[in-house]
């Protein structure tokens, strides 16, 4: 296994830093000490811990992004793949290599997808900050590390949200500087985070309490800790409205870096389907598997974790029903369970689930991979998940993939009628 979970890396550096002096941040970055913080949704959850890390002092500018697309032509507006960035990608630029009047060189770059932000960060040897890191650093104002309960701070944030989006954004230097020397964490643009898809607020914030029981497992995790923190609600709402390829006019990014260099991550490369994504998975027989090797067969796929007590057993049972409903045709179909829980879903654990649930190991493939690989695959499949108190809250996904890995049909509500899925599979199988 070439890559290791970045989570583990973070924990390791937490230990080393606590005994050492404040590390010197690289040029253009600031040292963020890390610590405990309580996120918006943390009513029942414990505080979350963030290890120390480095963070870009300012957002990535149009000028910096121009240098990136010059060096990596596949990210130029006319070249980029639609799976990586939607049609709004750099739409305010005058041309492929010409930001133009609407995108001043020193203003933050916007209209960039998560994949583009990630690739640009990687090109600099950095990564996107995690949501925890970003939220931790963003609690600070000019004088305090934690201003999150200061009414003046909250009012300032809301005032930005109350202002209309101007045509051209201001210089990144104009952003308010916080106690860590970070400029413009609020007030200029929204920012991408690595695990934006861990926000499960969903479309209808009013019913998260019940909706989440219906749609997600990890009950009770989504109740906000501070219902009057409108500013935080809006950040989480924005994140939950996004998909990896979305490009939004008020959404930019800044990069982060771990104190000890990050282990090689799953590089962002152009892909057409999830099967193009890099990274090595392990199946229930502990054999290495790439998603590319899944080609050539129609598959019904889900993501989850085998310890799940609520949603995943139901999803597996639905998939089993789909298999039965397909009858003899099921022989031509693969059933895939991608684990989001690399720590617990060992080959042995996955094998035992297959036995317990009396699944046919010839047709059923359970796969686990390190966190970074899981994350990129999840974003590509528009799958949301979040670790809360040792369990995952996650989307309920049953997807039908064609022989190239293209998602032809998806179901996202638990206990939905299986017929549309069966029909979609049959339609694919009947293609010459």
């Amino acid at each position, binding site marked *: 296994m070439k890559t290791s979970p970045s989570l583990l890396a973070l924990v390791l550096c937490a230990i080393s830093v606590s005994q050492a002096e404040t590390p010197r941040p690289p040029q253009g970055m600031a040292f963020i000490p890390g610590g405990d913080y309580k996120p918006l949704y943390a009513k029942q959850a414990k505080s979350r811990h963030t290890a120390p890390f480095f963070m870009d002092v300012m957002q990535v500018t149009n000028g910096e992004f121009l240098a990136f697309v010059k060096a990596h032509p596949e990210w130029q507006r006319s070249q980029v793949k639609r799976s990586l960035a*939607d049609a*709004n990608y750099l*739409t305010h630029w005058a041309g492929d290599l010409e930001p133009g009047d609407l995108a001043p060189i020193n203003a933050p770059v916007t209209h960039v997808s998560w994949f583009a932000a990630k690739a640009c960060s990687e090109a600099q040897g950095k990564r996107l900050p995690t949501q925890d890191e970003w939220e931790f650093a963003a609690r600070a104002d000019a004088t305090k590390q934690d201003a999150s309960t200061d*009414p003046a701070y*909250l*009012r300032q944030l*809301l*005032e930005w*949200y*109350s*202002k*209309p*989006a101007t*045509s051209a954004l201001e210089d990144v230097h104009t952003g308010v500087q916080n106690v860590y020397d970070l400029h413009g964490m609020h007030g200029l643009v*929204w920012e991408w985070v690595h695990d934006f898809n861990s926000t499960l*607020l*969903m*479309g*209808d*914030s*009013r*019913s998260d309490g019940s*909706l989440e029981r219906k749609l997600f497992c990890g009950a009770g995790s989504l109740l906000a800790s501070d219902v*009057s923190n*409108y500013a935080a*609600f*809006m950040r*989480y*709402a*924005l994140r*939950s*409205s*996004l*998909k990896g390829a*979305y*490009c*939004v*006019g*008020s*959404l930019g990014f800044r990069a982060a870096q771990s104190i000890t260099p990050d282990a090689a991550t799953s590089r962002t490369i152009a892909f057409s389907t999830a099967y193009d994504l890099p990274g090595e998975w392990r199946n229930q027989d502990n054999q290495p598997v790439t998603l590319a090797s899944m080609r050539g067969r129609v598959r019904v796929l889900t993501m989850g974790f085998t310890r799940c007590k609520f949603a995943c057993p139901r999803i597996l049972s639905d998939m089993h029903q789909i298999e039965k409903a397909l009858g003899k045709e099921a022989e031509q179909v693969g059933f895939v369970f991608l684990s989001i829980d690399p720590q617990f879903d060992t080959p042995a654990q996955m094998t035992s689930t297959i036995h317990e649930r009396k699944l046919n190991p010839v047709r059923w493939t359970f796969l686990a991979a390190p966190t970074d690989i899981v994350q990129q695959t999840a974003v590509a499949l528009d799958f949301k998940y979040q670790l809360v108190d040792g369990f995952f809250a996650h989307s309920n996904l049953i997807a039908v993939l064609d022989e190239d890995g293209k998602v032809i049909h998806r179901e996202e509500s638990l206990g939905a009628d299986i017929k549309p899925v069966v029909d979609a599979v049959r339609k694919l199988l009947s293609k010459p």
Partner: protein
Amino acid sequence: MTKLAPRILPALAAVLLTQCGDHELSPNEKKSQQTLIKEMATYSTAAPDTVRDPLKQPDQPLSGSEDAVLTDAPNVPPPITRDHPTKVTVKLEVREHVKRMADGVDYTFWTFGGSVPGKFMRIRQNDEVEFHLMNRPDSKMPHNIDLHAVTGPGGGAAASFTAPGHESVFSFKALIPGLYVYHCATAPVGMHIANGMYGLILVEPIGGLPKVDREYYVMQSEFYTKGPYGEAGLQLFSMEKALAENADYVVFNGSVGAIAGDNAMPAKVGEKVRLFVGNAGPNLTSSFHVIGEIFDTVYLEGGALPAQHNVQTTMIPAGGSAIVEFGLDVPGTYILVDHSIFRAFNKGAIGMLKVAGEENKVVYSGKQDDRIYRLEGGAIQTIPQASTQQAPAANKDERIARGKIIYNSVCFACHQPEGLGIPKAFPPLAKSDYLNADPKRAISNVLHGLQGKVIVNGETYESIMPQLGLNDEQVANALTYVYSQWGNNGTEVLPVTVKEVRATVPAPAAPGAH
């Protein structure tokens, strides 16, 4: 309980008939009785089960397709003439932009279709709606829509959750007729509503609504701003005030004066008018009233049944609606208000229906009689006698201090504590060219009242100022205070001047004179 109602109604009508049988009825009484009996008969025979359970109403099969006609307030799309349900496509664009809240006051509105309230949608029961929600690329926020007309979790909210620069599509069938509020339900919901994200969708019952001559769309809502009412400039949303439910603006159709003055809704004598009235809140319940009218029919809470007649004021809950209908008998301007009346005169909840046509002196005698009642005594007779015994003010400062007390008890109700007046209704006293040009004219107006057109700072006002019944000293003090404030020229008005004006300027015409 509701199932009993149709059986009781004819019985009740019979009782009424018997009781009234003894004495001679006037033609009007006869007419209204006949109407009542006819309506009761209608309710009891017109398949009441299907009125109460619209799902049981037989209908034609779905056929055809069309794009919904969407209108900005106060306009309403034309009535639906189809006798069958169809497939309707609705395309609604979300836009965040700065617009006028009041004269000199701007606000960043979040809108469904560019205006507040959002586009009015009109569909028919059993229509199948394909709903497209487009969020403009220059939006900062994700948005969605919860239509109260939708039967299903969230009313479409989760299905329509849309990031900036994207479009969501979902479908629903309009099972139940009625007038429904729609609004954005993205976190934080309160703020999305407080910024203007709401509107009305009418689901017409099978067979449609009774024909009327005019229909208008009126939606009440309140705004919470950082600065107080009237503070100029771009005002920002105040979460503190919203949480405390302490609104700065309570308005019809999204801004102060949106349907008042030149923007008044026109109508004619003899017409029957229907108002589709919504209340978006986000917090306040409306006591909706039209000054000088009585609602012939109110579809309470926007339900499909004309449930109440002869209503003066109808309650409209936040997130609710009402349909009101009334005939117009007399020309003039009819003022729409939230009869929680400080909202109307101090926070903007004023609309106008301007009715043209022939006078009907029998129904309403007109202005001569009104003059008789105004002439004697004046509006304010409660200025304490004691004050007349007070020694005259010794100097200008004392005059200003005393004048302030009079202003704050007599004048402020119309002219407002800061002298800003009420747009389209009461002229400002602050920086007033009219006032500064001629102190004697001002004295005369306070002494005798004022009626007719005046032009103040370029705006035309046509209201009535009553006589105030103040003595010379009080008039002098009040006016000196006004001249000393809000950018006026500082004129000191002396009681002797007031006396002079009182003696030289004739009082208004006596009763009966023209």
